[in-house]
C-alpha cells in the first residue's frame, strides 16, 4: 500500500502545475452553474471574476513550474525532461495571454465554462509533454480535443460556430482514431506502451524483421498528428473552423494544437535506431519532407485567394505548419549550435506570440453584434483604430518574416538549419522555405495595404477592452523582444 501511495505521490510531483490547473477547472465547473439564474442570466461583470480566477490558477501553475526542476526520466507515467519543462513554460505563457484574449468573448453567463475549457486545454498540452506512456499521451491529446469542442461553441452559439464545432468534432475524432491505430501497431511491435520501453525495444532491433509494420505505425501516427499540425492534406478543416470560430478560439487553434502535435510527434517518432540502416525516423523523413513542402505551398497559394481575414489566417497557419515541419525534418542535423528541433521550438514560440497577437487584434475590433470578417472590414483601420493598426501591422510583418520582428529570427534559424543539414534534400527544403516566405509576403502585405492605403468603409468596434489590449501588448513585446534578444529564448531551448 505504501509503495502504491509513494508511486502516486512521485507521479503527481512531476505534474504539480497541471494539478493546479485542473483543480481550478473543477472549481469553475462546479461553481459556475450556481451563479447563473434559471433563465440563463448572470450578474453583469461576472466574466471579470472568472477571468481573474483563471489568471490566478495559471499563476499558481506558473509558480509551480518555476520552482520545478528537470528530473531524469523514470519508469513512472510522467516525465519532466527538458522538453516537458520548456513546453510547460511555453503553454502556460500562451495560456495567460489566451485567457486575456478570451476575457470578453463569452457573455457573463458562459464565461466561467469558457475559461475553464481553456485551462483544461493548457493542462492537456502540458500533459502531452509530460506523458511517459503512449496511452497517457493519447489521453492527454484528448484532454486538448474534448474541451476544444465545447470551447468552440461556448462563446457564440450561432450557426457558424455550430458548423465549425461539428466539423472540428468529426474530423478530430477521425484523426484520433488514426493516431490510435498507429499507436496500437507500435504496441504490437514492442509489447509495451511505455515510451522508454518502446525506445529500448526499437533500438534493440526487435522489430527489424517487420519493417512494414513499423512503417504503418509511423505513417498512421503522422497522419493522426498532422491533423493537429494542420499539415496538408489534413488541413481541410482549418479554414472553415477558423472562419466560424470565435477569435479567442481561433487564436488557440492556430497555436496550441501545433505545440501538442509537434511534441507528440517528437515523442513517438524521434527515436533513432542505431542498428541497421533504417529507423522509424529515416523511414518517415521523406514523407515528412513532402508534407512540409506541400504544406508550405498549399497554405501560401490558397491564402492568396482568400477574402475573409480568418480564412486567410487559417491558410497562413497551414503554411507556418509547413515552415515548422522543415525544422522537424532537419531533426538532429543542422548547424553545430542549432539543431532542427531547436529551430522548431524557437519558431513555435515566436509563432505563438505573433499568431495569438494577430487574432487578439481581431478580437479587439469585433463587437458583440459584428465581427471583422472580410478583408475589406480592415479598410482604413489606421485612421479609425491607429494603435491596433500598428500592432496588427507589426504581427503581420513578423508573420512575413521581416527584420525587426521575431519572425525574421525564427525563419532565419529554420533556413539556417535546413541549409546546413547536409545533403541536397535539406538545401532544397531551405530554398522552398525562402520561396514560400516570399510568396507569403504578398498576402500579408495586402492586409497592411488595406489598413493604411484605403479609406474606412465599415465601422469597427470602438469599445475599449483592456484585457485584450494587455494581451496585444504582451504579444507585441514578445515579438519585438525576441528579435532584439533572441538569446533569452535560446538559453531556455538549450536546456531541452
Amino acid at each position, binding site marked *: 500500500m505504501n509503495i502504491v501511495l509513494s508511486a502516486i505521490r512521485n507521479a503527481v510531483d512531476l505534474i504539480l502545475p497541471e494539478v493546479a490547473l485542473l483543480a481550478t477547472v473543477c472549481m469553475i465547473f462546479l461553481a459556475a452553474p450556481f451563479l447563473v439564474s434559471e433563465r440563463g442570466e448572470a450578474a453583469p461583470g461576472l466574466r471579470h471574476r472568472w477571468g481573474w480566477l483563471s489568471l490566478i490558477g495559471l499563476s499558481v501553475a506558473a509558480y509551480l513550474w518555476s520552482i520545478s526542476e528537470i528530473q531524469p526520466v523514470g519508469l513512472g507515467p510522467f516525465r519532466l525532461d527538458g522538453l516537458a519543462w520548456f513546453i510547460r513554460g511555453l503553454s502556460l505563457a500562451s495560456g495567460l495571454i489566451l485567457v486575456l484574449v478570451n476575457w470578453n468573448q463569452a457573455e457573463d453567463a458562459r464565461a466561467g465554462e469558457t475559461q475553464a475549457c481553456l485551462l483544461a486545454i493548457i493542462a492537456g498540452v502540458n500533459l502531452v509533454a509530460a506523458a511517459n506512456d503512449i496511452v497517457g499521451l493519447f489521453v492527454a491529446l484528448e484532454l486538448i480535443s474534448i474541451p476544444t469542442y465545447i470551447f468552440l461553441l461556448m462563446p457564440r452559439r450561432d450557426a457558424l460556430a*455550430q*458548423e465549425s464545432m461539428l*466539423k472540428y468534432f*468529426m*474530423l478530430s475524432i*477521425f*484523426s484520433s482514431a*488514426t493516431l490510435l491505430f498507429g499507436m496500437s501497431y507500435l504496441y504490437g511491435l514492442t509489447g509495451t506502451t511505455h515510451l522508454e520501453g518502446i525506445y529500448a525495444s526499437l533500438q534493440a532491433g526487435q522489430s527489424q524483421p517487420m*519493417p*512494414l509494420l513499423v*512503417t*504503418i505505425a*509511423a*505513417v*498512421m501516427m*503522422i*497522419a493522426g498528428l498532422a*491533423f493537429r499540425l494542420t499539415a*496538408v*492534406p489534413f488541413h*481541410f478543416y482549418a479554414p*472553415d473552423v477558423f472562419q466560424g470560430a470565435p477569435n479567442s478560439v481561433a487564436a488557440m487553434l492556430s497555436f496550441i494544437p501545433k505545440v501538442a502535435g509537434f511534441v507528440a510527434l517528437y515523442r513517438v517518432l524521434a527515436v533513432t535506431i542505431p542498428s541497421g540502416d533504417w529507423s522509424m525516423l529515416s*523511414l*518517415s523523413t*521523406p*514523407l515528412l519532407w513532402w508534407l512540409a513542402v506541400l504544406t508550405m505551398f*498549399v497554405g501560401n*497559394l*490558397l491564402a*492568396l*485567394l482568400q477574402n475573409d481575414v480568418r480564412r486567410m489566417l487559417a491558410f497562413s497557419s497551414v503554411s507556418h505548419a509547413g515552415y515548422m515541419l522543415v525544422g522537424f525534418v532537419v531533426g538532429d542535423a543542422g*548547424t*553545430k*549550435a*542549432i539543431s532542427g528541433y531547436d529551430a522548431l521550438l524557437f519558431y513555435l514560440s515566436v509563432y505563438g506570440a505573433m499568431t495569438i497577437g494577430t487574432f487578439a487584434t481581431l478580437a479587439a475590433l469585433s463587437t458583440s453584434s459584428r465581427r471583422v470578417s472580410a478583408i475589406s472590414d480592415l479598410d482604413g483601420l489606421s485612421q479609425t483604430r491607429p494603435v491596433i493598426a500598428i500592432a496588427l501591422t507589426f504581427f503581420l510583418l513578423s508573420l512575413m518574416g*521581416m*527584420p*525587426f520582428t521575431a519572425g525574421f*529570427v525564427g525563419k*532565419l534559424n529554420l*533556413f*539556417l538549419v535546413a*541549409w*546546413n543539414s547536409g545533403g541536397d534534400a535539406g538545401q532544397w527544403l*531551405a*530554398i522552398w522555405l*525562402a*520561396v514560400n516566405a*516570399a510568396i507569403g*509576403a504578398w498576402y500579408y*502585405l495586402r492586409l497592411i*495595404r488595406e489598413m*493604411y*492605403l*484605403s479609406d474606412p468603409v465599415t465601422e469597427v468596434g470602438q469599445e475599449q477592452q483592456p484585457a485584450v489590449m494587455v494581451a496585444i501588448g504582451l504579444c507585441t513585446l514578445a515579438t519585438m523582444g525576441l528579435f*532584439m534578444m*533572441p*538569446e533569452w529564448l*535560446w538559453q531556455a531551448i*538549450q536546456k531541452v
Partner: protein
Amino acid sequence: MFDWLQQNVIWMIPAAPLLACLWIVFVGQFARRELAHRPVVLALSVSVLSALYLMFAVVPKTFVEHHGEAHAAHAEEHPAEHAAAEPEEAEHPSEAVSALAAVEPSEEGHAEETHAAAKSVTFLVYNWFDVGDMHIPVLLRADAMSSLMLLMVTSVSLLVAIFASGYMHGDPGYPRFFAAMALFVFSMCMLVLAGNFLLMFVFWEAVGLCSYLLIGFWFHKPSAAAAAKKAFVVNRIGDFGFILGVFLTWTTFGTLDFQQLFEDPTLITGVAHSNPAIFTTICLLLFVGAVGKSAQFPLHVWLPDAMEGPTPVSALIHAATMVTAGVYLVARCAPLFMHAPLALLVVSIIGAITALVAAITALTQYDLKRVLAYSTVSQLGYMFMSLGAAAANPEHLMQHAVTFAMFHMFTHAYFKAVLFLAAGSVMHAMGDIIDMRYFSGLKKALPITHRTFLCGALALAGFPLLSGFWSKDEILSVLFAASRTSSPYALAFSIIWAVSLLVSLMTAFYTFRAYFLTFHGPERFPEAAGHHPHDAPPAMAGPLYLLAFGAIFVGLIAGPTHLYAHYLHQTPGLPTADPHPMNLVMMGLSTVIALAGIGMAYALYGRGATAPAPDAPLSPAAAFSYNGLYLDQLYLALVVRPLRGLAKLSETFDKQVIDRLVDTTAAIPALVGAVIRPFQNGMVQNYAFIMLLGLAACLMWVIQAVAG
C-alpha cells in the same frame, strides 16, 4: 573631448536620424505638425558633420602606407604595435580599432608585391545573436569605402530634407513624410555601417520597407499603391538571392563578419585554393540581391513606377542612395568577386544590358520624372559595367573598377539629385503635372529651376570638366583597359565598351531632349498651374543651388586630383594596383560623344519644337521604346499570370474536386448526412474522404519505398 568623439562619432551618424524619427512619431505628429522638418534637418546636420569627422579624422588613422614588402611584413609581425598606438583601446574594449594587418600572397609573378591591409573602425553596439558557434553582434564598422558612402548619403539627405520642407509644405501627411525619411536615412546609414552580412541584410530589408512606405505615400492614388507593391515584391526576389548568398558565405567561410572576411586575406585565399568554384556561386547570388535593389535588368521594372512617390523621395531613395546599395554591396564584396571572374563578367554584361535597355526606353518618355528614372537605371548599369570590368584581370583592374564605380555613384548622387529636385520644382510650379507634352518654354518663368536643371543635365550628359564627365570617362577607360587585356573575356569587353559609348551618346541625347522640351520652345503652361507659375521658394532654391554646385565641381576630387582614388585605395581587402593614368584619347572621345548627343537633341528639339499632342499615335519603334521594350507586359505573361494560375488551380481543386465529391456523397442519404445536412451539406464527409485519400497515398508511398 576629441578622444570621446573619436570613439563615438560612428554611432552618432545613424543614431541622430533615428532619434528624429522617434521624436516625430511620439511628439512631432501631435504638436506643431508643420514644424516636423526641424528635428530631421537638425539630426541630418549632425549626421553630416559626424560623417565628415569620421571621414577626415577617424578613418585615416587606420590607413597604412604601403611602400613595398618590407614595411608590410613588418606590420604583419607586429600587430601589437598598432594596438599600442591606440591607448584608448585598452580602456574601451568594445570600441577597438582593429589591428588586423596581414600579407596578401599574390598568385601571379609579382609575389614580392605585398601590402598591409588597412584597418577599419568598429563599434560594438551589443551581442545580438550568440548561440554556440554563431556570433552575430550588432557591429558598426567604417572604412574608407563606407565613410565616403556615408558622406554622400547624409549630405544628399540633408539637402533633400531642406528641399522637402518647402516642397511638401501643406501636405496632410507632413510629419509622416519626415518620420519615414528619417527612418530611411537611419536604415541606409546602418546598411553602410553594418559590420557583417546579416546585419546588412536586416537593413537591406529595412530600406526596402521605408521605400515601400514612401512610394505609397500618396496612397489615395491607386497607381502609387500598385507601384509600392510592385517595388516591394520585385525587391523580395532580389533579397531571396541575397540571403542565399549570405548563407552560402556562412557555410563556406564560417563567418559573416566583414572584418574577418576582408581584413584577413588568408581566409579567402585559403578557400580560393581548396574550392574556387564556390566563389562564382556566392558572388552570383549576392549579385542577384544587388540586381533587385539597384534595379538592374531583368528586375529594373520597379524603379520607373516608383516615381509615383513624392519627388524628394525619388531624388533621395530612388536616385541617390538606396538604389546604389547594390553597387555598394558588390564593391564591398570585391575581395570575393576577385576570385570569381565569371561572376564579374556577368555583372558587367547585366550592367551593359540594363544601361542599353534603359537608355533606349528613356529616349521617348514624356514624363520628365520617368526620363530621369530610366536614366538612373541606365547610370546604375554603368556602375555595374565598371565593377565587372575587373573580370579581364582581377589583380590589376579590381581596384580601378571599384574606385571608378564608386566614384560614378558619388557624382551621380549629386547630379541626379539636382535633376530630380529641379523636376520636382517644375512639378510644383505646374500644379503636379510632369508630362512634357503639357508645358514648354519654362526658361523665363522658372529661372532658378532652369539654371540648376541645366547644371545637372550637363553633368549627366558628360559635358567636359563637369562631374559626370570625369566619372564616366574613368569608367570608359577602365572598360577600354579591360578590352585590351589578353584575357579570354577581352572580346566581350570590347563589345561592352562599344555599348557604353553608345549609351553615353543616348544619355546626352535624352537628357537634352528633356531639357529642351521643358525649358525651351514656346511658353505653355497646363491649366493646373494657373497663369503665373512661381519658381522655387528659398527652402527649395538653396538645396538646388548647392547640389548644382556639387554637380559641377564634385568631379574634381577624382579626375584631375586623384584625391578620391587615394582615399578609396585604403579600403581593406582591395588589391593594390598601379595608378591609373588619365587617358586623353578617351577624354577626347567622350567629349565628342557628349557634344554630339547634345547637338542632336538641339537639332531635333532645341529650335522651338514642342512635343506632340498627348494623344498623338506613336510609330512602332517609338512605341517599342516608350513602353520599355514591353518588358512589363512580358513579365505579366510569363510570371504573374502563371503564378495566379497556380493559385487558381489549387482553388479549383478545392472547389471542383472536393465540392464535387461532396455533391456525390451527399446524394447517398446516409445517417450521418442527416445530422450534418443542416450544416453545409456534408462538406465534412468530403474533408474526411480527402484526408483518407491522403492517408492512403502516404501509406502506399512509404510502403512502396520500404518494399522496393
